């Protein structure tokens, strides 16, 4: 999927901006606060039905404007042209989505229609911070590609709260009634093992493209890897039934702890995705630049995953990715981008985009200044 043109009206600092994109790298160049990231945000609206960045739609509308409107033309991998728009009316507080002119019944129906993979400075946390960020990474990717996963995840969260309440009540009453706890344990294991299986399957898929991308970007042969760290005894290739049996066993082992602490201690809500660098846990010792490279390699693998599962190449949105990379790595990232589908990236300085890209109509440089867009001239 690639985007060919975009129009933003009263969206952030864009009064009425029209942009034509090339099929390759599209570099949005401009100083801070000129509206580069807002363009990525607009694309994210069409991809997810909401912003990657803002929590509220009202934050995105221009001050005093009654609405914002994002309208775009896309071309799918098999050459089909699709028009899409999303409009948010402040007064009604409602978003309306249209594809080829016909309104969609619910905004969420647009999710997955125009797949995109975003990398922003906010994602630095995936490698560096806690396991919750890494679970979120897997969850967002899997929810975009499997409606069943989304459903299982929502129900798992509800079951978890119910089960925790039983454990907590039991702690106050000095003992748990197995008859009351067991149905929730069954439901937890049933949903949880499907979630774990899907996450492991996905991690297994990401492994190879992640290693390949890291090796190319870093220009080293240092071994890297991804490990889904979950239930003790979990092994690749286990089916949901085997995972379920293991899950039961682990819950049994921890049953006294769970009752003492009044909460569920094992399951997908406690799992982690570990990054290995030189055979060690990268979270603990990787440098700033290595973190960034691991993250780009991970996003690269995500592109391949979405492409394989959806049979459609996602658009790659890179926000301010080049700032922390040395010129050699930046050139390798650009080289990698050049060979792949469409990418839209932001940079404060064209100098950061050194390399041997032939800037023309396929790979474009655009200058973004005070909410306007013009061809970039050095």
């Amino acid at each position, binding site marked *: 999927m690639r985007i060919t043109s975009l129009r933003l009206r009263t969206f952030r600092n864009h009064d009425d901006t029209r942009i034509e994109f090339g099929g390759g790298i599209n570099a949005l160049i401009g100083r801070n606060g000129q509206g580069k990231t807002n363009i990525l945000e607009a694309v994210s609206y069409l991809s997810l039905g909401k912003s990657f960045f803002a929590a509220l739609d009202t934050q995105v509308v221009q001050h005093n404007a009654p609405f914002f409107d994002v309208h775009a033309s896309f071309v799918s991998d098999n050459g089909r042209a699709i028009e899409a728009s999303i409009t948010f009316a402040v007064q009604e507080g409602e978003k309306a989505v249209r594809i080829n002119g016909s309104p969609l019944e619910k905004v969420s129906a647009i999710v997955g229609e125009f797949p995109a993979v975003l990398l922003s400075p906010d994602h630095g946390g995936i490698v560096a911070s806690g396991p919750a960020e890494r679970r979120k990474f897997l969850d967002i990717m899997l929810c975009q590609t499997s409606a*069943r996963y989304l459903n299982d995840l929502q129900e798992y969260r509800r*079951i978890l709260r*119910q089960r925790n309440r039983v454990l907590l009540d039991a702690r106050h009453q000095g003992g748990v009634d197995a008859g009351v706890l067991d*149905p929730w344990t069954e439901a937890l294991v049933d949903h949880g093992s499907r979630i774990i299986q899907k996450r492991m399957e996905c991690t297994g898929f990401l492994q190879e493209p992640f290693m390949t991308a890291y090796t190319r970007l870093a220009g080293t042969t240092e071994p890297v890897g991804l490990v889904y760290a979950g239930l003790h005894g979990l092994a690749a290739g286990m089916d949901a039934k085997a995972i379920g049996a293991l899950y039961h066993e682990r819950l049994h082992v921890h049953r006294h702890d769970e009752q003492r602490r009044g909460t569920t201690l094992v399951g997908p809500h406690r799992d982690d995705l570990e990054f290995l660098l030189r055979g060690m846990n990268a979270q603990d010792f990787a440098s700033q630049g290595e973190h960034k490279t691991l993250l780009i390699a991970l996003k690269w693998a995500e592109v391949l995953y979405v492409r394989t599962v959806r049979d459609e190449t996602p658009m790659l949105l890179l926000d301010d990715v080049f700032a922390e990379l040395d010129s050699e790595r930046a050139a390798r990232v650009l080289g990698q981008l050049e060979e792949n589908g469409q990418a839209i990236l932001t940079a404060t300085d064209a100098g950061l985009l050194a390399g041997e890209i032939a800037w023309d109509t396929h790979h474009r440089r655009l200058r973004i200044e005070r909410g306007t867009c013009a061809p970039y001239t050095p």
Partner: protein
Amino acid sequence: MIYTSEALQQLVEEFAALPGIGRKTALRLALHILKQPREDVVKMARALVNVKDKISWCSVCSNITETDPCVICSSTKRDPRIICVVEEPSDVLALEKTNDFKGLYHVLGGALSPLDGIGPEELKVGELLKRLPGEVTEVILALNPNVEGEATTMYLTRLLKPLGVQVSRLARGLPVGGNLEFTDEATLSRALEGRITL
């Protein structure tokens, strides 16, 4: 807002206390009542009081009834070997509309939900156990297909199976007359899982 009549204000407040009714709708309803002929209003008031005076719970199936046992439990045309367990009286009405079920019912009064403080004691589980096994050979669990309904189904299955009755549950599937294209993916995915060999 100042009401020129205390009686009107009282009625508005009564309506507004009902579920799903805001103050605006309450006022509209109250003014509507005011315009109605007196006998219609009396009829309605009587209907309200009757609901409280005449309806009680069936001592056998816990459904709402005016006679005890209820008309379904005391009917000789129903098959007493099959009991269908549901959450609410409204579920009985829904199943009765099918005209396909000729057995008896048991109304639990909800589903297990620890977060809302609903455990087995809050439901009519003991009453169900008292009816078993007797002449009952099958119990159909027809609870809502959500997290709480599923957990309740699991809870009851474990309780009922040792009693030597057949325990079944409703199938999960596609709405009849619907369109595959417009079915949500999660329902479709489960229907696929529960596919039937022909």
